[in-house]
């Protein structure tokens, strides 16, 4: 065999890298540490912002103000909890803002127009939100419409239906005055601690358990991590995606109840843009829009960072226009830091 320019064979690989045992070196443990470090970092930023505002104004770190921050975070936070699941699958849900408004209008329909008892009206509203999510899920997973488009369509449909059903006028809960207590009833004597915040906290616990301890959470991560491989492993990906979008819808329905209760009326306008606030909270919390990564605690921290910023900037008298600028910068910085971390990983 003629071979004029044969490159001589290279010596074998470095023996220290050959055995399996040797590959087991520290890297993974370090990576795990880095994961929790990121969570810690988000939490540390939250604390830092709170400390800065506390020094900047004596009115910031008071029990009443902290409760009002939590109250402000409640509705967006609940939307963000549900949408965290969707985003971890690699999807997105743009219909949660106007879907929430439509759910609120439906609460008015059930309680005021139809005169249903309070419990039935509230339950039906939450289920109605679930129905919106179910339709999203079917559109995404059975019809194969990309999540962005499917939920964009639903966003517009919900915005329009709210106006059509309500006749563009607010619906008041005259027959069920207790309705407004759902959000506002103070449940701790002495300070004004509204029930809505307590519901938010309960929902955080439920969402966290669902995501980390159940089969639903496992498949949420699995689908977002590698959908094709998940399907090849025999998981019914379609069905689980429908379930996950429906779950996000149930959170939307609950948010509809709470926001209508807070205002003591179902306002048929607005809601547009709220989905982006919720998505921002999720993203600040370290959940990846590529899917596969995320946590409930991260989303909660994200929602709190946004609420604290808005509240604190108002207290130190920064004009409202600038508050939005600040939140925008926080989103960019948070996501950039997250990408830096991933690139190094």
């Amino acid at each position, binding site marked *: *065999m*003629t*071979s*004029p*320019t*044969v*490159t001589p*064979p*290279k010596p*074998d*690989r470095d023996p220290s*890298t*050959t*055995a*399996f*045992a040797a*590959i*087991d070196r520290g*890297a*993974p443990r370090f*990576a*795990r540490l880095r994961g929790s470090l990121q969570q810690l970092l988000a939490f540390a930023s939250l604390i830092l912002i709170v400390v800065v505002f506390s020094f900047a104004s004596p009115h910031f770190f008071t029990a009443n103000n902290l409760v009002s921050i939590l109250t402000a975070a409640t509705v967006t936070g609940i939307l963000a909890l549900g949408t965290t699941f969707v985003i971890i699958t690699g999807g997105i849900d743009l219909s949660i803002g106007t879907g929430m408004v439509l759910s609120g209008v439906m609460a008015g329909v059930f309680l005021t127009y139809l005169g249903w008892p309070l419990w039935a009206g509230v339950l039906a509203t939450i289920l109605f939100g679930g129905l919106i999510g179910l339709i999203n899920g079917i559109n995404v997973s059975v019809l194969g419409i990309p999540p962005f488009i499917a939920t964009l369509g639903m966003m517009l449909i919900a915005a329009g239906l709210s106006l059509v059903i309500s006749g563009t006028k607010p619906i008041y809960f005259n027959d069920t005055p207790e309705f407004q207590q759902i959000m506002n009833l103070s449940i701790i004597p002495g300070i004004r601690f509204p029930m809505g915040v307590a519901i938010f906290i309960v929902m955080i616990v439920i969402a966290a358990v669902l995501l980390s*301890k*159940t*089969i*639903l*959470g*496992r498949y949420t*991560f*699995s689908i*977002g*991590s*590698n959908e*094709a*491989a*998940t*399907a*090849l*492993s*025999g*998981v019914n990906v379609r069905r689980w995606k429908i379930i996950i979008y429906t779950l996000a819808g149930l959170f939307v329905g609950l948010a509809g109840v709470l926001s209508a209760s807070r205002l003591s009326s179902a306002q048929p306008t607005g809601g547009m843009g709220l989905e982006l606030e919720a998505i921002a909270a999720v993203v600040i919390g370290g959940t990846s829009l590529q899917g*596969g*990564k995320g946590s409930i605690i991260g989303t909660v921290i994200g929602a709190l960072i946004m609420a604290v910023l808005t509240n604190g900037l108002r207290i130190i008298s920064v004009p409202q226009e600038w508050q939005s600028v600040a939140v925008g910068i926080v989103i960019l910085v948070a996501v950039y830091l997250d990408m830096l971390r991933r690139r190094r*990983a």
Partner: protein
Amino acid sequence: MTDAPEASAPLLDLRGVSKGFPGVQALDDVSLELHHGEVLALVGENGAGKSTLMKLLAGIHTPDAGTFRLNGEELSIEGPKHAQELGISIIHQEFNLMPDLTVAQNIFIGREQRAAGFFLDERSLNRRARKLFEGLGLALDPTERIENLTVAKQQMAEIAKALSFEAKVLIMDEPTAALNDAEVDVLFELIGRFRRPDTGVIYISHRMEELTRISDRITVLRDGRNVGTRVTADTDQREVISLMVGREISGEQRPATRVIDGDPVLSVEHLSTRSLLRDVSFDVRAGEILGFAGLMGAGRTEVARAVVGADPRESGEIRVHGRAVSIGNPAEASKHGIGYLSEDRKHLGVLLERSVRENIVLSALRDYTSALGFVSDARIEKTGRDYIDKLRIKTPSSAQLVQNLSGGNQQKVVIAKWLAKDCDVLIFDEPTRGIDVGAKEEIYTLLKGLAEQGKAIIMISSELPEVLRLSDRIAVMAEGRLTAILDNADATQENLMDYATRFSSEGTIA
């Protein structure tokens, strides 16, 4: 061969299996048998149909014709889950793992231990995984996330997953591609442990010396057909390779050996990358076609990408016309007159939704832009027409969208794009992939013409006849190294394949 039980029916019996895809008959009337207790090696060149056959067994594709029998019982495989239930377990070439989940979560995905139906019992999941690893002798931590593992360990997790199904038939598609020698030993030990009188393994690989170690019989596929099965002990590498490539070199005559003694236009010295390439050196002269041969994953495309700066280099020097240049990205490469025509034409080569002429001037667009930043449509139209005529691109007009052209004509648009830049060195990566035979001829003529005009041409191709026909010299790669640079006169399909399978692990070749 290992002794099989006296059972009359083979473990797995395929009869007359065919599968076609638009434009290609991937499998044509293939029959093969897997006996009880044996390791059957399945070999063949790139595109011979091995992966398609495996996907049929995995239930990913359904065959157009043919029957499957498992222990004598005829069946059809409905889907991936059904294949698992039948006891057919497959390790795919591309990993089917969820990087964000832990090892244990990956292995038992879809089969989780549950408490109260809905809640996960993570502890028992990890316990089961640990037991599985102990049984297999694997040093894996069930709670580690897949993304934190080395590729070799990911491979082990994949294998552990496949073995956790109580599989009867284990199919492995190039399982050692990412493994080093010690890891291969571990893998072979696993296969040995799996092999019992009631199981069997189909082992797909390019590595000849592995086949001698692990397999009982070798079945060779070529162009979607089973061209022969040999008992491993009674055959040798030469016979298997000649079965793989076919005896006759397909019709075309070789180029008259030309003496090309110009100065090198492009010289690459000691090129290495972190991921794959090790000390690759070559040069290419004006008027020369340098072919790059090698198996999939040998590093041919990686050489091209590293040269044009699309991937980072770890070390190495690049000279253009004898002068050392620094190339950090493809734009700088094209400034130095080096054009790279990617193998992935659809994603990296053309803008399908734009017109032919826009594509042609795309990388030279600056030359068609006035000082004020306006693009001159008239001049673009003229250049477009020029190249359409010169390369005989079949298109009704220069305004036609590229997506409406045939594959061959799309490729010509890509070539025109780089000619419009006036490059001295053109690197063609699989220039005829997905192109029909007639258009291939035109591309060949075009490449030869370019060389005659004095361009230095590098052509990466997986088709040996094509490499042999066009190249003045042929560089062969295996595992990121250059194993030979041969003059065309010295090259045959057999010795090219031989050099392409020279892996670092082996001492001598049988």
